């Protein structure tokens, strides 16, 4: 279980015009180690935000390094970090967690990244290079100037990296081609915006690659409800009834009435906020539960009830 650490912002560097690299450290405690692909959760005034660690886990010098793309004003997490956080500030950071680990059984790792989706792979590639394992990177960005870690990747992994800066159609065609003709022992990892992920996932299905060889990390829940509707919830054990409004998650609503459901990712990935369903229909939006599990369980961070549901809480 992740716990919060009080860390100091040691360094803030510009990675691109819209992406900053933040280095956190502590003079008082040794920071917990982490695995390649891990992330930390920052406790910000607007809520918790997860960011992948970009350092090499085998060369960690009591520092956590993340890269954040500014996609909001200071009311959002990324804007707050860009505009309101400075060197020397203190920040509460949960110890690292890893929902996107490297598969140790793989003989060859293939990474597909788009935009800021490069971050977990920066750490993974450094790790694999250190232990002498085989990998390659396919990295799409709108241009060299917007391409985070371009110089770093060119310096450290030049023969293993392909960049895709061309127009969208050509980019998609080339990325699809890079996915083809893969052989046993290969594991494929995807990280980037939903459209990028969906195109490559769909193509991997067309190629009949079994799902166990494809690994993904999403910035958003797998399914997004366009027009969320309010619903009523009955808690059968604590005998409480309440409404979840259209702009609220079930997890938030439960916390508001004092039901302390644990959570971590808030994106339907980790399964921490799972609850049992006693009765009712649910719109499942997670990428964690199996089809069988969805019959009796739901993840409160992303999934919603329809009309009226009863939960085993």
């Amino acid at each position, binding site marked *: 279980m992740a716990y919060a650490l009080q860390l100091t912002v040691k360094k803030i560097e510009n990675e691109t015009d819209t992406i900053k690299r933040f280095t956190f450290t502590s003079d008082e405690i040794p920071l917990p180690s982490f695995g390649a692909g891990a992330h930390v959760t920052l406790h910000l005034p607007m809520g918790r935000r997860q960011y992948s660690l970009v350092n090499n886990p085998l060369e960690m010098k009591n520092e956590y390094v993340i890269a954040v793309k500014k996609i909001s004003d200071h009311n959002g997490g990324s804007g707050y970090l860009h505009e309101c956080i400075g060197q020397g500030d203190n920040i509460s950071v949960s110890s690292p967690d890893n929902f996107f680990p490297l598969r140790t*059984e793989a003989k*060859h790792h293939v990474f597909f990244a788009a935009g800021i989706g490069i971050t977990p792979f920066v750490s993974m590639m450094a790790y694999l290079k250190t232990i002498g394992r085989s990998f390659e990177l396919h990295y799409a960005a709108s241009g060299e100037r917007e391409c985070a870690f371009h110089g770093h990747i060119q310096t450290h992994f030049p023969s293993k990296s392909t960049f895709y800066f061309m127009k969208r159609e050509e980019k998609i065609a080339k990325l699809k081609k890079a996915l083809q003709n*893969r*052989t*046993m*022992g290969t594991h494929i990892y995807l990280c980037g915006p939903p459209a990028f992920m969906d195109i490559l996932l769909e193509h991997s299905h067309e*190629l*009949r*690659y*079994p799902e166990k060889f494809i690994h993904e990390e999403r910035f958003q829940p797998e399914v997004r409800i366009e027009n969320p509707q309010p619903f009523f919830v009955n808690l059968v054990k604590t005998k409480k009834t309440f409404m979840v409004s259209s702009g609220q998650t079930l997890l938030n609503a439960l916390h508001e009435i004092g039901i302390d459901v644990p959570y971590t990712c808030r994106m339907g990935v980790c399964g921490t906020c799972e609850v049992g369903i006693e009765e009712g229909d649910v719109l499942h939006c997670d990428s964690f539960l199996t089809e069988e599990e969805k019959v009796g369980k739901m993840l409160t961070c992303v999934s919603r009830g329809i009309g009226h549901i009863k939960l085993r809480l």
Partner: protein
Amino acid sequence: MRHILILTEVRFKKDGLKEKELRKESGSSVELKLLDSPVDRKKIEQMLKDKPLGTMLILYTGGATRKLIRHAANSAGFSHEDVRIGKIYTGTYRIFCSQCHRINGKASLEKSIICISCGQHLEPSDHYSSFHDAYLGYPIL
């Protein structure tokens, strides 16, 4: 549908061919390869190299060859569940005693046996352990 590679020893060729036809009927792309005797690990590794992602390997071989191929397959990136064992009709099987864990060789699946180690009366089941290359024998009370 996954690509399927069937490796069979000459003595089990019939079983391998039968499997091939069944898999073909269900729409899979199937390859069948006959193994030379004795089986050479390097040759097997070469055979398994560069197989399409998602390939399933089905073996029609005896126990020793099966072990050797499993190791070669693991080196080539096949996981335990990517390798299946075809059912071979040799007439005799290894039975794992659920009481004393002794493996009784050359038993029939149709008849109950007496464990050679503990004397327990055992009913052979169809629960196969690829680790032990044996079928589980339940005690008859």
